[in-house]
Structure formats: structure tokens, C-alpha cells
């Protein structure tokens, strides 16, 4: 089960929304520049033959796995529940990651020291992908999306980020 803050924020008005999608690569060396999320790179992915619109891909901190995350409808809404589809890959072979004991998803706003208003669970599907339902970004600003994979005694993170703006 992923964890998140239960702090409540009310009164947000959903206005016209721009979601700037950012990717946080797990390669430590590539993270050190700049103050935003390391290796943050804007991706506008809506090619016919390319990945689905809004899909992000990131490598874990120790470069042992990659993940993709695709929000329903291709973007992250403000203050409305949404679902995401997640795929996990072995970073070396590129094949689906199968050798792990737990994978969790969470999203947080580090500048505000809180996360989403409730926990979400990453549920495996028969086709090898995972679904997380009822995610909620209830504030504008910089959200980090954390994908943590536990293998034995170790847990390793890959993360992406999203800037939600009016």
C-alpha cells in the first residue's frame, strides 16, 4: 500500500489547467544540475507511433529498473481523481520487472511537505501492467510521483514530477 498525507486542502477552484510534465531520471549524475527535479525534461508525447500522450518514463536511483506512467486521458487534472497505468521494466534487459516483493506509488509536494489526501494502491493486471485509481492532485504546484520497488531488504525509488498550473 502506498502512503500519502491525509492533510485536507479545501476551496481550490479548478481553472484552465496546464500540466507541464517532467521526468526525474534515476541516474544520480544527471540529477545534480539545477534546483528543480533532477534531469527534469519536458516531454510532449502525443505521437501516433510513439508512446501514449502524457506518458513519462524514468529510471530508478540505482539504475536497476525503469517505469512508465501514463495518466488517463493523457494529462493530470487539478483537484479531480484520476487513474494511471504503470509498467515496470528491468533496466538492463528491458523486459518486464518480475523479481520484486512490493511496488508502491505515491505523490508528494516537497515544497509543502505533504502528499495526496489519501493512499492509493498499485494493483497488478493480467497483462503485466499496474493500475492506480483515485489519485488526486489537489493543489497547483510541483508534484513528485514516487514509484518504490522493494526487493528483499532494499527499497529503491524512481520518480517523475509534474507542475500543475492554472
Amino acid at each position, binding site marked *: 500500500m502506498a502512503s500519502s498525507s491525509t492533510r485536507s486542502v479545501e476551496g481550490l477552484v479548478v481553472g484552465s489547467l496546464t500540466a507541464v510534465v517532467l521526468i526525474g531520471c534515476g541516474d544520480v549524475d544527471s540529477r545534480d544540475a539545477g534546483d528543480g527535479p*533532477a534531469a527534469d525534461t519536458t516531454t510532449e508525447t502525443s505521437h501516433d507511433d510513439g508512446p501514449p500522450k502524457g506518458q513519462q518514463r524514468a529510471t530508478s536511483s540505482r539504475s536497476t529498473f525503469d517505469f512508465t506512467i501514463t495518466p488517463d486521458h493523457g494529462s493530470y487534472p487539478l483537484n479531480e481523481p484520476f487513474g494511471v497505468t504503470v509498467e515496470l521494466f528491468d533496466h538492463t534487459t528491458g523486459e518486464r520487472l518480475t523479481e520484486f516483493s512490493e511496488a508502491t506509488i505515491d505523490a508528494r509536494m516537497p515544497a509543502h511537505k505533504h502528499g495526496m489526501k489519501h493512499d492509493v494502491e498499485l494493483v497488478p493486471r493480467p497483462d503485466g501492467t499496474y493500475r492506480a485509481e483515485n489519485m488526486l492532485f489537489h493543489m497547483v504546484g510541483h508534484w513528485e510521483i514516487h514509484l*518504490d520497488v522493494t526487493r528483499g531488504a532494499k*527499497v529503491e525509488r524512481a520518480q517523475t514530477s509534474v507542475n500543475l498550473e492554472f
Partner: protein
Amino acid sequence: MVILVHAALAVLAPAVELQEERATHLGLYIGTIDALVRPVAVDFGPAGDVDRALWVAERGDTVTEPGLRALDGVDGSLGGKTTTARTLVRRGVGTLAEPSGLAVSRAGEVWATDSALHSLFRFTADGEHEVVAGMGSGAGELLFPEGVTLLESEDGTLRRVAVADAGNGRVQLFDPGAETWTVLDADDLEWPSAVAFFGDASDGSAASRVAVCDASRHKVVTFALDGSDVQTFSDWGPFPSFVSSPGGIDTTDGLLFVSDTENHRVQAFDPNRDGRLDYRFGVHAIRPGEGAGSFHYPRGIAIDANGNLMALAEPMDGRIQVFGRAEGHVPKEDPTRAGLGSPSAHLGPVAAASGQFLATVSPESHRVTIHDVRGERPVKIAELFGFGRRLGALRGPSGVWLADGGSKLIVADSGTRRLTRATLRVDPDETLRQRPELAIYEDAVRLDALEFPPDQRPDRERPWVAPLPGAVCTYESPNGTRIAVIDRANEVVLLLDEVLDPVRVLSLGPARPTGLVPSPRGGLLVAAAGRAGGHVFEFDATGTLLHEFGTDVLAQPAGLAARADRIWVTEPLRDRVEVFELTDDAAAPPEHVGGFGGRGLGRKRFHGPTDACVLGDGRLIVIDHGNHRGQIFTPDGEFDAGFGSRLYVAPLRAEDE
């Protein structure tokens, strides 16, 4: 407190009726017993010819040995004064190493736990003693035991002994008649710190339940004697009804009185109304030594058999505050001492520096504070981590390390038994400002899930148990960077490689490791405390022991700092920092060249200095934990500046005026 069956019957009435009947409440300050040496636990009970003495477990210092002490005259005659009390008898001196819990029977038997010896002792009224339980994780074995309490029948028969088996995350009940143990690990207890028996008004049974403070989860858990019917209340936080690392519990009036250690207060909960807060008293002592109802990390709590006296132990201030009854169901509100606020962000006990950053730990808020040290004084720019279990959260930060110019952060967490690594975004040209997004949390490893080869474990009689991390650092070995972390449970240093796999165990003999730092000569320096005094062990880069030094100077060292030619060792019990210098002879151990300190608030005066680190410009920072501040010294050893709590830094600045 000893629960008597007939006394417990008094709590069988519905809670509402109890409130109406109760014309007084417990919480009126009536005096302070001082001149004690780190008192951690208390209980009322007979001692010799005195029917109601106050027994206290003292951790001791370099002058006073740890042990148990029975005090006379602790009653309403204190008259609001601070005084010493006459010692009636001592127990366990020379036997106990780190007493942590205490309970006294009506017959005068004293039961005491020891968190360093991982044992439960029984002292008879004539002074004989036996070890009832020793170290381990099986039934009838203990690991870092803390609170202990007794359940007696009206005829004085001892029915059960409950022990907060903190290191094993459980409570154990000992039946002295059958000599059997019952293990209770209800509701995923993490670090049970205190226990109390109490009655259950709902089913008419007397003293049929156990209440447990969980200091790691910041909750109070109650359950029946067989472990069933678990109820949990409270959570972490500073607000009324919330608790922070509760360290003591006792009962009277049908209420559970919880020593809310890191919120510096006592809260009275009603277990028969879902743990609703009935009332609270006590506020955080702001000024050094402030008391008379103001608290500073209160811990053990005891209420006498009549419910008329309460004693509260405060180890850091070497005192016990005593409370009696006052008019009214609850205390009168005092708007000037509301006792609200944010979590107290005390400085330390551990710290590390590298590049432009200084990292200090704030256990109360479960955060690591990052300071920018490019200027004269450290400036706080980020608070990392927070309370929780996910990656990037902590339950009990116990070690911190910065490396690679401040870009690599490692934090040890005794609550989750985990090491967490994070990258900090370093920019030497960065304008000084708040940087809430400074860290990327990368990975973590659970030390209790790693397999360290049995042939590397120390050859001792004591069993190998789940590691409990303390101080942490990195150093370079011929085979790459090593992460060294103190394992407080097995009293060794664990070495991990860069992918967090176990590499080796460094044994220190019978000494208990307390701090570590890379050696200026390569390798590792480890401070350790033993029964006979303190040591620093120097290992080379391959893990071979080179030297053991400081034995004739150190008592119970805590933290270490080192730079090219010099090593500093903090001594919390002596309020000193000892200084060693490396000689030209690389094969010789460092030499002791002096030290500084003493108890106080002025410059080079400390209250329990727990750690030290060296900034990039060569200045030394000493974490003056008990004084809620840090002191900075120039490379020449002169006082330079202070930082931390304003009231405690003021005396440092006053010397300029």
C-alpha cells in the same frame, strides 16, 4: 504502580459517574526532588521500615554508579520546595548497567529492567537479586526492555509481571506462580516503552487489561491479559490528546496518565471512553532548569496506591517532580501556559557536515535539518524526511552522515531499522534561501532483513538479534566506499558496500559502540563505552584494528569529529569534549592533548554534548544537545558562535557585551 484487585474495583463504575464523583484531580505541583543522577523510572513502595518510599532508577554518571534508590519523605510536606531526599536504601549498584524500568511490590520486592544488559532483575527485600530474564528474542527473553509493572492480589500474591520488551516490539507477561511467559505483540507494537495494568469497566473484571505506550508509533495500546480485544488511541503530534514518544504510564481514577515525553507534559486519558483525553498538565520548560510544573523530557511516572501522589522523573534535569490532588475534576485553564505549539525541534543528538551543508537531526519532528554553513553561522534551509514509514520518512532518526561535498546524505532510523540514502542538490553559487526541494530520496535498506555471515559475528555468549542502527558514516576501503553503521543491539559496527549489501562485522569486544567517523589516516574511528570506561578504536581501511586509545581519559564517549591532525570526542556525562592529536608516527595511537567543557550555559560549557563535526573551513561544531544549541569553535579552539534555541544561545552572545 502496583495494581491491587480491590483498588481496581473502584474503576468498575461507568466513567461518567466517576467524573461526577471525582471532586479532585491529580496534577497539583507540590515539590521537586533534585540531585539525582539521570532518574528514568520511579515507583512507590516499601523500603525497610518505611511503608511508602519513592523508589527511583538512576542511570548514573562518572561519579555515581547506576542503580536503584529508595527515597524518604516524598509527600505533601515538600511544600512546593526543591530539595534532596534522604536515601533509605540502594539496590543494584554494581549489578545494573543501564536501569530502564522499575516496579515495587507490596512485599518490598523490587523488579527492575536494564536496557544495556537486556535483562529483568528481581531484588528481594533483603537485597538479594536474581536475573529473571536475559537477552534474546524468544519467550522469556528480552531486548532493550523498558517499563515494568506488577499485578498483585489483595492478599499480596504477585499474579503477573508485565515488561515492555521494546527491542523485540512486544510486551511479555510473566506469571511468577507458574513461571511461564506470555508474549503479546498486539497491534504491531514497535517500541513499547511503558506498561500499566488497569481495570476494565465494561465487563466488570478487575485489573484485567494492559496499557502500553508505543514510543515509536506514538500511540497507547490496550488489550486484555491474553492479548485479545486490542484498542489503540492517540497519534503523533503536539496537540492535546496527541503524544510524542510517550515514556511512562500509570493509572488511577480510571484514567491512564501518560508521560508525554517529547511534548513535555502529562496527559490523562480515559480508556473506557475510547481513550478520550480527560485533561493534561505541564508545559515545556523553556528556561534552563525551569520546573515547578514545567517539564523537560519527563519519562517515568508513578502514582501511589491511594492515588494521592504522582512522581515524574526527568532524567536530563536530574530531578523528580511530585504532584498531588487539587480541587476540581480537571485543572483550571491557565491561558498563559496553554501548552500548545508545534513539535519541539531540538538540536541533535547527531550531526554531520560536508561541503556547504550541516545536517542535524530533530528526533521530535522526525526530520533532518539541513543548514547552509557558508556564512558565519549555520542557516536552516531545509527540513527533510518526516514521520512515517515510506521511503523518505523516519520513525526514529538515530544517525546522519553527509559526504561528497554535501551531495550524499545517509540517515539511520532506529524506528524502521533502516538506512536511507538521498541526494542533495549542491550548488556553491546558490543564493542563500529556503530550499524545500533540496533532496531526492533514492533508496533504503532494512538492516534486520540483511544476512551477516554467522562466522563474522562476535564470538560471545549473547545471541545475535535484529540490528538496531545508531550512528553512521562512510569511509574508503581498498574495495570501494563502505557504509559503517553502529548496531546498538549487537554492539558491533556493520559494514555495507555501495549497493547496500552486507560486507563485514567489526567487533569491539565487550564495549558498546556509540559514535563513529572516518579516520584522518584512512579507515574508521569508533567511540565505545564500557563498564570500566570509554575507548576509541581505530581501524585501518581494511577493517583491521590498529589502536585503542583514550581509555585513561574517556568515561562514556558519544560522538566523534576528526580532521587532518585532530580528533574530538564528546562526553555527555562529563559535559566535556576531549581532544586528541595524531602524531608523526603513523603507527602510534593519537595522543590526548587536552579538552574543554563543564556543565553550564556559557561558552565552552555544555549540557550533554552528544556529537561534533568539522566544517569545510576547519571550524568545529559541538552539538550541545541538552542546551538546545550548537557551539562553533575556530580551528584554534576559540569560541566562534552559537546557534539554535534563542534562549540558550543568548548566554553565549552575552559574553560579548
